[in-house]
């Protein structure tokens, strides 16, 4: 049975995920998204994975959420508060959400996952480091290249073509 910390984290995570999508202001929405990402980090702590939890806090809450917040600030003010959605489409979306929740939840509750419990000690985080440099080293290098490529691509995409270099210095 789940304990109190788990239930509190569930409420925070699911509640702020709904708030992130439904809040009128995009700024408050992105702050609510920070709550979701932090709640997931809390789940990682509960799962005895402190290394992944701290990675999640550093990368998601620390950088991605702040990046999103800054992008939202670049958008015009009336667009930040404008909800663009169709009423009928919204009800259809809620129906789709409930169908997915109920059907997938029923499948999982009916499957063998329910009986899986463990008394074994948690995985040592030194094993993760060993995994990275032994079995997964090509993937690690590829990931580094993908990250470098994506940063370069983001810079090239966001660069303004209509501004001259001498204007840029002023």
């Amino acid at each position, binding site marked *: 049975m789940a304990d109190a910390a788990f239930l509190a984290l569930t409420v925070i995570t*699911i509640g702020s995920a709904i708030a992130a999508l439904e809040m009128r202001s995009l700024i408050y929405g992105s702050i609510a998204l920070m709550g979701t990402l932090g709640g997931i980090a809390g789940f990682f702590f509960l799962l005895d994975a402190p290394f992944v939890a701290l990675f999640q806090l550093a990368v998601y809450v620390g950088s991605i959420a702040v990046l999103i917040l800054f992008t939202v600030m670049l*958008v015009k003010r009336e667009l930040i508060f404008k909800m663009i959605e169709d009423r009928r489409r919204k009800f259809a979306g809620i129906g789709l959400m409930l169908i997915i929740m109920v059907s997938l939840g029923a499948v999982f509750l009916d499957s063998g996952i329910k009986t899986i419990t463990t008394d074994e*000690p948690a*995985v040592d985080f030194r*094993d*993760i480091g060993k995994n990275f440099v032994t079995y997964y080293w090509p993937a690690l290098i590829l990931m580094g290249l993908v990250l470098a490529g994506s940063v370069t691509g983001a810079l090239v995409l966001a660069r303004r073509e209509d501004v001259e270099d001498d204007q840029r210095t002023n």
Partner: protein
Amino acid sequence: MTNELIDFTLVSVAMLAIGIYGLAVKRNFIRMLFAVEIIINAANLNLVAFGRFLPHAGGQTMALFSIAIAAAEVAVGLSLIIVAYRMYQNVDIADFRSLKG
């Protein structure tokens, strides 16, 4: 452990459903990016939960890879938002039609 694997899996299913709802209903580019983030986090939660209960270090390793790739995806997605906003002065995806034949 007092918490069982099924608890974490059900939270993950709920987050997946919320993310799909956001992708289906919202027309704001930035909110759709929020929905994608929520779905990716649901997947990461599953990876770490199964890695804990097997127990196997592969789950956490994959979760770390997934977090790093998601960071790259957000960087590119946000710069696409900036470019599209500069071109159309809007964040409504229904306005981004220049590729439509």
